[in-house]
């Protein structure tokens, strides 16, 4: 297990679409999310939810490269996607949902006391519950 953290910017702002998807590989390591923070970039009201998509996104076309916080550890094999050929389907339920004010830099942080564990070949999405802003997302993992 090694700590990994990543900051990235989303591009998909369309309501009822995923802004990003955190995807566990078929085997090896299960990403355990410890913390997620989200800040709007341009200043628009945002409503985001975090949940398990009904179906995973198909063929991610835009992926974020992950590094471990300890440079001596190998890079992780899980994946964060911000674009897809076919996007993920809407979650039925959400672990968290929050509304952001229309202020650049307004911030909400979700924490998970025991970690949100993504089992192999599964994913979780940050879901646009409204027409949202482009946002900067930071996630801390144990994986």
């Amino acid at each position: 297990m090694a700590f990994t953290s990543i900051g990235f910017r989303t591009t998909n702002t369309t309501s009822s679409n995923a802004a990003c998807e955190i995807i566990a590989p078929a085997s090896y390591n299960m990403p355990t999310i410890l913390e997620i923070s989200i800040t709007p970039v341009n200043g628009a009201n945002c409503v985001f939810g975090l949940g398990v998509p009904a179906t995973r996104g198909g063929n991610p076309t835009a992926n974020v490269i992950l590094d471990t916080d300890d440079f001596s550890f190998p890079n992780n094999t899980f994946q964060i996607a911000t674009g897809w050929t076919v996007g993920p389907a809407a979650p039925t339920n959400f672990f968290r949902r929050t509304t952001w004010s229309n202020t650049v830099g307004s911030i909400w942080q979700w924490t998970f006391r025991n970690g949100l564990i993504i089992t192999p070949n599964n994913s979780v999405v940050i879901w646009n519950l409204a027409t949202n802003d482009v946002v900067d997302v930071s996630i801390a993992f144990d994986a």
Partner: protein
Amino acid sequence: MAIYSVAVRTQIANTANAGATLLTGSTIRAVVFEAGWTLATANATVIGFGHPGAGTTPATNSAGQPEDMAGPTSTVNVAVTWTTYPTAPANFFRRASFPNTVGAGIIWTFPRGVTVPTSNSICFYNINTLGANSDCWLVWDE
């Protein structure tokens, strides 16, 4: 024992009504560690968090989601509408006021947890909402 959470949008925004209730089943209690609330519409709002005075009959339930995706199914639900409404808590564990700003909110944490016995409930209560629907979530151990 495992951690569960679920997030909902409130539907009942009238003053002196519950916004959302967490309801335990008949066999397993829940220990609430976190309760979060953000305004989805701009109205000055006052909410509290406490045990309702009388039991409730929920109309819509959202089941707890295991934060370990391999975990067992939750026995706890969160309701945002009821056929029999919760009555006002006599006292509150937490209460907070928000400005009429979309996105205003709070995260309450309970370091040792608030225990909800079996067949019981705890609620976000609209002390003064003026019609402000909100996004809220609860995190618990069961």
